[in-house]
């Protein structure tokens, strides 16, 4: 429901510049927006829970054989009285008090009891995996091709799934390595833009390649999604019409009607 088959968006502010985006993200309707919002809230709360579980594990003394009743009788910290003055929100003292209250509360105790039998290495591994999923996992794959007349072609890929470097996601935003992986090819180096076909299993895939001068390999456009032939053909026509200044006689070119794929 949250993802669809890859489809094409075209953005073309002037006839000499065009961006073709193939994405698995469906059109952002209100229900979808709400669902995505709920999902990200869920993920954030999951991350917060994991961090909180680690915190409770950190502050509990390493006595794995204590019965739950004894922990109830001796909570690690006596619950602070919550600060009465409303102006003291978001101060460190208030936050620590809030943490103590949370630790002493029933869900906190339950979480502590849940994580208590796990050995430390297993706990850290599980929480690491959960954090990775919560913060780094991306839902949609978006790949785009930007064509600038007189400058060149740029491919960009933001892949779904986890990414440590060079991806987007929350982590990418935090560390500053956000943004898609891009590759720019100057027009001077472009030998040709072709649609190639390949066998994959028992089907034929059509894909767009850029043949670059002086390189041993071709650059595949939309390498992750490999959209169908209709989209690829639309993009190919668009690229041919947009990239070069004077299309050859009677050849391919921008025919005035581009449809959304």
């Amino acid at each position, binding site marked *: 429901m949250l993802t669809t088959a890859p489809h094409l968006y075209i*953005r073309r*502010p*002037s*006839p*000499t*510049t065009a*961006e073709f985006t193939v994405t698995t993200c469906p059109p952002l309707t209100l229900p979808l927006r709400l669902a995505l919002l709920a999902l990200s809230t869920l993920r954030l709360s999951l991350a917060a829970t994991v961090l909180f579980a680690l915190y409770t594990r950190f502050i509990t003394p390493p006595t794995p054989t204590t019965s739950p009743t004894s922990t109830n009788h001796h909570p690690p910290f006596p619950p602070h009285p919550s600060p009465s003055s409303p102006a003291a929100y978001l101060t460190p003292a208030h936050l620590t008090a809030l943490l103590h209250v949370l630790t002493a509360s029933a869900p906190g105790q339950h979480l502590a009891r849940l994580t208590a039998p796990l050995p430390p290495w297993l706990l850290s591994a599980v929480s690491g995996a959960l954090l990775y999923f919560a913060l780094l996992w991306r839902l949609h794959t978006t790949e785009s091709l*930007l064509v*600038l*007349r*007189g*400058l*060149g072609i*740029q491919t*960009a890929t933001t892949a779904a799934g986890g990414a440590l*470097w*060079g991806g987007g996601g929350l982590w990418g935003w935090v560390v*500053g*390595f956000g943004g898609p992986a*891009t*590759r*720019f090819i*100057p*027009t*001077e180096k472009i*030998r*040709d833009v*072709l649609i*190639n076909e390949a066998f994959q299993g028992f089907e034929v895939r059509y894909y767009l*390649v850029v*043949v670059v001068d002086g*390189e*041993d*390999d*071709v650059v595949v456009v939309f390498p992750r999604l490999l959209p169908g032939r209709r989209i690829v053909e639309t993009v190919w026509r668009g690229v041919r019409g947009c990239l*070069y*200044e*004077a299309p*050859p006689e009677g050849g391919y070119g921008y025919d005035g009607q581009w449809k959304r794929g």
Partner: protein
Amino acid sequence: MHPFSILTLGIFVAGYITARWDLVTRLCELAIFAWDYGVVTRAAKAFLALTLVFLCIFIPVERLATREGYLHDALMRVFWPTDLPRSDLRGVVVGWRNSALDVFVLAILDEVEPRNVESALQLGTLTRNAPHPVSRIYEVCGQSSMRVLGLSNTPESVEVDPSWIRVTTESGRRVPAVTCARASSIQIILFERPLPSQMQYISLNPIALALGDKKGTFLQDSPDSGEDDDEKDERQKKAKRRQLVEKLKQHSVIKRVPSAKEKALAKIVNQINWAWELEKLLQSNVSRIGTRPKRSLSVSERVVESATTARDIMLVWIWDLFTVYILPVIQRIFILGLMGHRIFAEMLLRLLEWRARPKYAALKDISATAQQVEIRLQQFCYWPMQYVTLRLRKNDWGSVTTSHPDYIRFYNSLWLVANDVIIGIALGSYIIDNANWVAEEISQLLSSYTVDALQSSISWLMGWPAGLKLNSELAIFLGDLFLWVIDYWSSCIEALRPALPNIIWFIGFSSFAGASMPIALFSDLTSILTIHIYSFYLASARIYHWQLNILISLFHLFRGKKHNVLRNRIDSCDYDLDQLLVGTILFTLLFFLLPTVVVFYLNFAIARMAIISLKAVFDTMLSCLNHFPLFAIMLRVKDPRRLPGGIRFELRDTQDFRLAINDSPKKLPSTSVIYLKSIPLNFKAMFYQYFQMGNRIRKHYLSPEVVLCLLTGKFVPPLNRKNLYSLQYSMLPARRAGVMEMWDAVNSLPSPKRRVAPVYVPVLANGKRYPNNYGGGRLRSYG
């Protein structure tokens, strides 16, 4: 015309007419005849018709043609710095014109006349007081001169050249509105200028952290040694792929000739790198445009001037004293010390690189210590050359970016050596203080792991290990053999034990030359002290291999076949009965003895693998200490724009852009707003050498051939040191500079600039001063 010649001409005409009077009368008659028969009216009608045709058809067609000529390929490209100061004042846009419709904006000069700016640019007034030669700008930016590109914030009524652009910049809006009479569509490419003073720059290709001049030499060194099978494999794969791509390239029928705009990209990258410095230069000279007011200094200004001049003269005098008398002496002594060191290093390097025969291994190929010493010496030899290159950088504009990778390499290696020495001092002082304890520990480790553990495992193998019923006679024979050698070896180690504290003390002392020295020494020490395991491994592998070979050939005999060496194939063969009998008996015998040999072989093979992995750990530590891209990572975190990894473009939505312009009365051409950004170098490229080394090791040791070798008892060839350590040499030149070259280079350094007493240039402005707050703030004040 001269009056006299007019007179002459008149006399001539009059004379001609009188001489040929009959011709004149004929002409008169002809005119009267034409008038009588309506020739004149008909001619007038024809003229009228032609005029009409001309007016109605030809002029519009010509107009249309010129318009079309302008509009054809009427894509205008404007490069615009985003951090250009915005103001509402009228100004002149100055920059580079790369081709007719491809402009690069450098600066907006406020409140000046375009005509004056044009003449000032031609005379070079705007580039006066440049710190470095001006011709260098034009050479690098690929243009012969800067031009006036257009006007900013000018009302529509002002008539301008059709190729000029009109720009509306207001302090409130991010993207300027650009129009041009000739352009039908416009690409505005916005970029943020890199600051040359902070060594930021952009480039099309990723910055090279390693020196890339010895790809070829490594390949030439070992073109067809048996070692690089995997290399060859890889090369073949690459060649195959290249062939496929070549085939694909033949599909494109039309070879396009790139237009001027497309070819300009490399130039434009340079222009972007220069933009900041050039704008500063232009803005500092704005005050020179126009006429100078004639005014002498006032009395108070003169007093201030003479006071500052006196202070400056004192400073210059002291500086002169220092540079003339003291500095050269210090420099001389330093250079002589450096040369002495260089000569000593040369001798040592010759020794380390000496080979008895070209095919033999040199000292540095065998020992990690020798290699470490060699790397350090090579670095010491390379540093002065690098320093000279970097010093020469100061004599050029800051925007010349060719030496920035050198800078990063130089400081990276300096920092690594400093780090190495710091860690080494800590480690060394610890080792020296606790030499006895460390020696005790090491001898303990040695005896427990290389002697006792081996002995116990051999005796375990001798007595039916894990319930396996081995052949006890053979097991006892082999075990006794190995135990006897181990006994002998342990007595050798016992003899070494008293000397161990001294060795440890020496190692600790050596670590003042860097923590990499003790690591290399420990690595060598490990190989020396475990030589018995190596020989056991060799011996048992040999025995196992022989036995396996014999078993295979006897198995062929058992089936009535044999291996034909001449044809390299299996042929059938008629054996006699006794041959078959003896062969079968031997086969059975050897087959039942095989497990005993296998367990001994496995034991030593595992021990050998453990030692190899220990040495791999040492080598990894060494390569981290020697070549970790520390400086690059620091730069990547601190200022990613100093490590460019290419460029990327971002297409912005033009909706808000258009909305903002709606209030202006005229219609804008279709515009796309594009941001040009620099991609910082990614981590994969930073650690490229490490990845390559890891790949090589993985391919070599985890390949099926190696597993096969291990299973059949063949000797596993160690990875060629030269291949493994191409990483170590990635930051050193393939050929080190000779002693004389270094002498020349060091002496070619320019002497420090003599400070000249500053000449006071009065601010002869056209009513304006260069703003004081320039550079920091974006808005300017005019005083």
